[in-house]
């Protein structure tokens, strides 16, 4: 027979696990409802005279996409070069370093381009979205929108989601290109393989499927970043400290969700 302390501790652990599962299901449900509401406003809003404003979408696109461009370019180039260094070293063990371009290009287009971009956007714009909505909730600005007859999902969430859906794949595409170019330049400098030969190899090895694989997952990442940012922002309690907490939580959850989804996506797609 377990002692009452052990039995109490086990029951407490199950209690916490149960609560976590319920919270997770609740947040998934909330995310589903938000996505549905956004689609409703995209397609039905204009007929009700309440469209999702282009001005707000463009403003979000500037914030999420254009402002993030320098850091995405720097990180993509760095990771491209890093892949080239590691690739040359690893293939050099077998004397096959001249084939390094195959691995770099496939990995960049199918994996690193979308993944690194999504992580950067989650850290930069997902957290900003959570902080913005959290602050607006605390300052009663969300209530103000509601009482003015302005649906907060239409006004705040739908433009951010659409901007993410456009800008995350666009940034991923740029990230893939920059990553491959930076790796090509390093390979040229290190192995003496010309950029033209490297590019030809890339064109030969890469197919449209590879590109769609990368862009497809970046669309899913965009939805995850937007919804996780909004759900966390809207759940804020406890003033400025609460905003800090939900912002951190949003980044952690977004990155975890991105990495997990990436694995599941890769597993499913490579078996179809």
């Amino acid at each position, binding site marked *: 027979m377990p002692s009452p302390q052990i039995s109490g501790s086990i029951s407490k652990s199950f209690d916490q696990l149960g609560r976590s599962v319920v919270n997770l299901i609740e947040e998934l449900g909330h995310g589903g409802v938000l996505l549905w509401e956004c689609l409703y406003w995209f397609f039905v809003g204009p007929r009700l005279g*309440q469209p999702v404003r282009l001005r707000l979408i463009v403003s979000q696109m500037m914030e999420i996409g254009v402002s993030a461009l320098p850091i995405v370019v720097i990180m993509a180039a760095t990771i491209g070069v890093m892949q080239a260094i590691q690739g040359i070293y690893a293939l050099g063990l077998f004397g096959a370093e001249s084939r390094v371009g195959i691995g770099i290009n496939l990995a960049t287009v199918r994996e690193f381009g979308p993944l690194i971009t999504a992580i950067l956007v989650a850290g930069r714009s997902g957290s900003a979205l959570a902080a913005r909505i959290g602050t607006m909730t605390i300052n*009663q600005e969300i*209530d*103000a929108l509601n*009482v*003015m007859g302005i649906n907060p999902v239409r006004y705040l969430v739908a433009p951010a989601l659409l901007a993410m859906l456009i800008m995350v794949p666009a940034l991923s595409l740029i990230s893939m290109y920059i990553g491959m170019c930076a790796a090509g330049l390093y390979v040229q400098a290190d192995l003496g393989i010309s950029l033209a030969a490297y590019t030809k190899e890339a064109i030969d090895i890469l197919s449209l499927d590879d590109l769609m694989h990368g862009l497809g997952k970046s669309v899913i990442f965009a939805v995850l970043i937007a919804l996780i940012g909004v759900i966390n922002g809207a759940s804020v309690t406890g003033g400025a400290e609460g905003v800090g907490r939900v912002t951190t939580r949003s980044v952690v959850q977004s990155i975890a969700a991105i990495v997990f989804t990436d694995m599941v996506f890769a597993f499913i797609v490579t078996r179809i």
Partner: protein
Amino acid sequence: MIDTLQNEDSDNANGPVIEVEDLVMYYGNRKILKNVSMEVRNGEIMVIMGGSGSGKSTLLRQLMVLERPHSGSIKILDQDVGSMSARELFDLRKKLGVAFQGGALFSSMSVGENIMLPLHEHTELDPATMQIMARMKLEMVNLAGFEDLKPSELSGGMIKRAAVARAIVMDPRILYMDEPSAGLDPVVSSSLDDLILLLRDAMGMTIVVVTHELESTFKIADRVTVLDQGEILFIGTVDELKSHPSERIQSLLNRRADDEMLDPDAYLKRLTGEDVNGDATL
């Protein structure tokens, strides 16, 4: 087109525009509003007052249709909010204006943009006309020339005035104000009271003010609702309130705490965590 509806229902000039019947509201297991019934008449300033935790802010959120009651009914402009469709609620909201306690101005926008937001969303007016309307409302609240400033560049009193300008830009039939005088010095507070009176007299608005400021209440209220622990203690005019025999009401008016609070033994027991039987609960 903007709805200018002050003169609607002219045949029912003093009839109720808000009717609350047996309103009950819970937060968790705590009953915040206990069978509250009241009405607000057309064109009057109704002040809802009460101590902290009396339920006045919860009642205001119900009247603003930000929350739905657990039981009871609320009728606003003859429409039962409980059975309203989303479209009807959307139309109703255009006839309501709210000035929140902290202003709730959007920090990313200028004062002018804040005020024009409802016009942008609900009307087809051209930008020049919207700007003229925003300036008119700013002038009305004595903030002319401040339209290009950000809310962070305004003082507390100016933020509240800008919030009022935004709340009245659609010429609402009912204006709700949450603690308009809170945190303001007496001079600014008094000028806000004058503004509230002006809005009633010049625009014929029905105004519901939630406050715990007695001086302000006495100055602006046509009628007063006193809430205590989620129940209505009193509804009537300021004169009736002042002369009301209830000791509880007089305590509130004279800012006296409960007798229990003044009892040193009870106070000591609360501090030491003992209940009435003398058992320590900590």
